[in-house]
């Protein structure tokens, strides 16, 4: 049983962004040129050079005060990943035994299918390299018995990494401890993700966090219905023609007088 998972307990996150930098450091990602847009959040979203990001959000606490929410955003590493389903290249997006969903940059052809089929809009396209990239759950570290860089660096234990079962148990006991609107996010949908949250607010409050993420019907239609249908259509066409040919034969023109002018 070596299925692992990451648990992000937003109630413990202080928004220090050690995770953002540790991720860049381990994955050798360059910095982006940013501007201050009137918030602490930077970069503004995930990018090919930013695999993980703290999203800063201010919400009314309903008592005249404010709540400042910090959410560590990154790939969820679904058990049933839309990206992997959509990817045309064999082995380009693969799952590790621990549960990480990884894009192999060597194999990526930059078709961006994964971005548009990801329920969380996670994989990012790099114009320079024409490759997609995203969080790898530090599978290279995990394979070596280390924990992902963000989890390692997190000062408060807001990012935990361990056996998936343990993480789920921890998540539920923590959510119960927090009470109120606290909930666990990620253990149920998409076959269960390998990055889960304990959220203090209802999921709908968080920016860029779908309340009910799922594989789109279009993707199912595409991969489950139309894909077999197209090969069926091809084979069916060939089969029909073959049958016609052996049963009825070709439709040959009959020559008449005057046609054979040269004979």
């Amino acid at each position, binding site marked *: 049983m070596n299925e692992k998972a990451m648990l992000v307990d937003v109630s*413990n996150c*202080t*928004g*220090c*962004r*050690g995770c*953002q*930098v540790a991720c*860049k*450091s381990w994955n050798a990602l*360059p*910095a*982006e*040129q*940013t*501007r*201050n*847009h*009137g*918030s*602490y959040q*930077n*970069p503004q979203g995930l990018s090919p050079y930013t695999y993980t990001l703290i999203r800063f959000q*201010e919400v*009314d606490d309903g008592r005249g*005060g*404010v*709540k*400042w*929410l*910090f959410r560590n955003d990154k790939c969820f590493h679904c058990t049933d990943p839309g990206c992997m389903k959509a990817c045309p290249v064999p082995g380009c997006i693969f799952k590790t035994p621990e549960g990480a969903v990884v894009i192999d940059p060597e194999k990526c052809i930059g078709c961006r299918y994964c971005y548009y089929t990801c329920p969380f809009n996670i994989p990012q396209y790099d114009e320079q390299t024409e490759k997609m990239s995203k969080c790898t759950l530090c599978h290279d570290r995990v394979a070596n018995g280390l924990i992902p860089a963000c989890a390692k660096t997190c*000062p*408060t*234990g807001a990012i935990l990494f361990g056996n998936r079962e343990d993480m789920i148990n921890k998540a539920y006991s923590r959510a119960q401890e927090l009470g109120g609107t606290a909930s666990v996010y990620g253990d149920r949908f998409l076959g269960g993700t390998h990055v889960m949250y304990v959220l203090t607010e209802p999921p709908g409050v968080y920016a860029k966090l779908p309340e009910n993420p799922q594989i789109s019907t279009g993707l199912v239609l595409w991969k489950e219905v139309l894909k077999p249908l197209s090969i069926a259509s091809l084979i069916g066409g060939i089969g029909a023609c073959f049958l016609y040919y052996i049963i009825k034969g070709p439709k040959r023109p009959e020559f008449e007088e005057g046609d054979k002018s040269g004979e």
Partner: protein
Amino acid sequence: MTNHWIDLRNSDCIMIMGSNAAENHPISFKWITKAMERGATLISVDPRFTRTSAKADIYAPLRSGTDIAFLGGMVKYILDKNLYFEEYTREYTNASFLINPGFKLPAENCGVFSGLKGTMTREGYINGKYDKTTWSFQKNPDGTPRKDKTLQHPDCVFQLLKKHFSRYSLDMVSDITGTPKDRLEQIYRAYSATGKPEKSGTVMYAMGWTQHTVGVQNIRTMAIIQLLLGNMGVAGGGVNALRGESNVQGSTDHCLLFHILPGYLKAPRASQPTLQSYNEKNTPETSDPMSANWWGNYPKYSASLMRAHYGLNTNLEEAYSYTPKLDDGKNYSWLTIFDEMYKGTIKGFFAWGQNPACSGANAGKIRQGLARLDWLVNVNIFDNETGSFWNGPGMEPKEIETEVFMLPCAASFEKEGSITNSGRWMQWRYKATEPPGEARPDGEIITGLFYRLKALYEEKGGKLPEAVTKLTWDYGFKLPGDKIRSFDAHFVAKEINGYFLKDVQIKGKLYKKGTLVPGFAYLQDDGSTSSVNWLYCNSYTEEGNMAARRDTSDPSGIGLYPRWSWCWPLNRRVLYNRASVDKDGQPWAMKKPVIWWSSETGWNGDVPDGGWKPLSAGSESRYPFIMKPDGYARIFGPGLTDGPFPEHYEPLECPVEKNLMSKQLVNPVIKRWDKEGVPDLDLRATFDSRYPIVCTTYRVSEHWQTGVMTRWQPWLLELQPEMFVEMSHDLADIRGIRNGDKVTVKSVRGEVAAVAIVTSRFKPFQISRNTTHQVGIPWHYGWRQPDPEKKEMRSANLLTPNIGDPNTMIPESKAFMVDVVKGGAK
């Protein structure tokens, strides 16, 4: 910190006030989170809602510069509701001491304590000085302080305290601070719950308390609360200054400050021509046999320091004579340096690993001062606004005659040595790589300068050459010709610890000449030992380099980790720990004992504050606050320049015309640089309609200090790329500013361009029923990076006033008045 980082986890209530630990000491939250998981309450008091506030159970806003009012209200609450720890207050503090009947409190003396002499103005006294005669303790015939252990005598400290803080009612406090009353009560209730013996509360503060004209008194108020609640010396308690730089603790211990020598020995004054007179002046005495009066050892420490400086090349008096003396009563601190530089009396200047062009208050004046120097030596790992000042905005290089040297030094992991963290842990760091290019460790640069100067003075002579030529400097392997080029930190670390300079017999044991001194109790006043810093004596002994220890065991169970690195003094992890036990030596909090006494094994747990028996042993024991001459913690503190009790005064620049508490507007004894009607750079604009908004400065998690290291790192610059100013929606609406707009923040001293962050984390204050707005700016930015080509000075300190706390002279960077307008600067 009296305690240390890991100890935060033992606390039942953590108050973060005057600091923003989540952002500026993020790893502290590892331990705060652990405490909260155990059920501790986290309180955040801050003018703005920070990342710390976001995690707090209770948050209260307060107007910058009103901490004494806020905390004074808590003192009143504790006393009114009898929530103080009675036995602790009675036995361990000077609450029972009787004070001179002539002593007057501000309530009965125009807002000042008795004995003030100064100029009276419409704002009250200015440039005053206290005659402290009436701030004295009544003495018994045997010279010990007179006490009333019932705490009922009208002249006793306890009753005076009660009387003094009776004025700090909820209404009054709320009117001054702008904090809603219910929030005040909520916090007072939560925090004073730690007055129970088994509970402990801790406070984490930083520059939010020190950078005020009442900085020391801010901390004093909290210290009084901690003493009343019995929170000093216990696990999860203490008054914890979160120091901001990796080795600001160590550099303070080694006294890179004008007024102290290593080990917090006083800098010699002109009136102390001999070592003997110096020792006499600085060695306190006590008549109480049960008072340890630790500073009574002063002559041992001063003699050992003289030996460390000059070794056996001189005798002690000669060494002392070479040590520079300060004029009595004169202050040579930061603000004075830049005032003198501005006036042109300072010709040469070292800015060694510091960037005063951005970090100093009223930085405009500092930048002008730099241009008047003959020479400037700037040592750093990156280019910075100080070294490149001549090329900065508003500067004309052709007209600046300053010779500037910018020397590249090694970064922390490119050399070997120790640093001391905020919890006083001295930790050894190793060298991982060579410095890039020709960069050199600071120690080598200093050594290089010393040997050059020594050679110059030996060859050419000069003024008092012996002071330089007789200095000992054997910190590395010698090259032929006795030249030492390298700098070996181990040699220095050993010198800091100290040696026996001859064979010494102590308590029947012989210590050979040349061996390392095992602890400061072994230091001698006759010159037979050397030690730079008595506090560090025991850090590098014959057993090895204690700072390099890496044993992760914790037999204490409360996170002391006694064999990980080393902690001054004597590896004592919690200061004043003798106050954590009752008079029989049993811990107040049995579940988290710091030390405990057993008649068989003696003291257990942490290294106790002196090995004497518990107090019930009578004359074989000593009072727990061993650094005080009388052995008692001071609720009444006559040693301070601005009053034995804290009193609320407004910041130099404030939004109110009057101090609601009294007729005295600002601290009467601060040194005022501004002069009415004299237009210079030392300007002040208080209660001025041009500058109606309170401003405070701070740091964010992603940058460090003036950003001199972090602004050059793309990963960090990416996170916080630009100077910004945070403001409330209300203020933004009034000024027509939208989120993300370019704005200008102006004070009477300067202006800074910034991006507006309009946020509901800032809310206007109701100060005496008037709406007062507050904004906040980080001080991480300058002009050198990023966007150097813009030559736009974005340093927050262009705005801050050059006014200091009367005790420490730390500038008031946390509360001043500004205006914010839409659009870029100029």
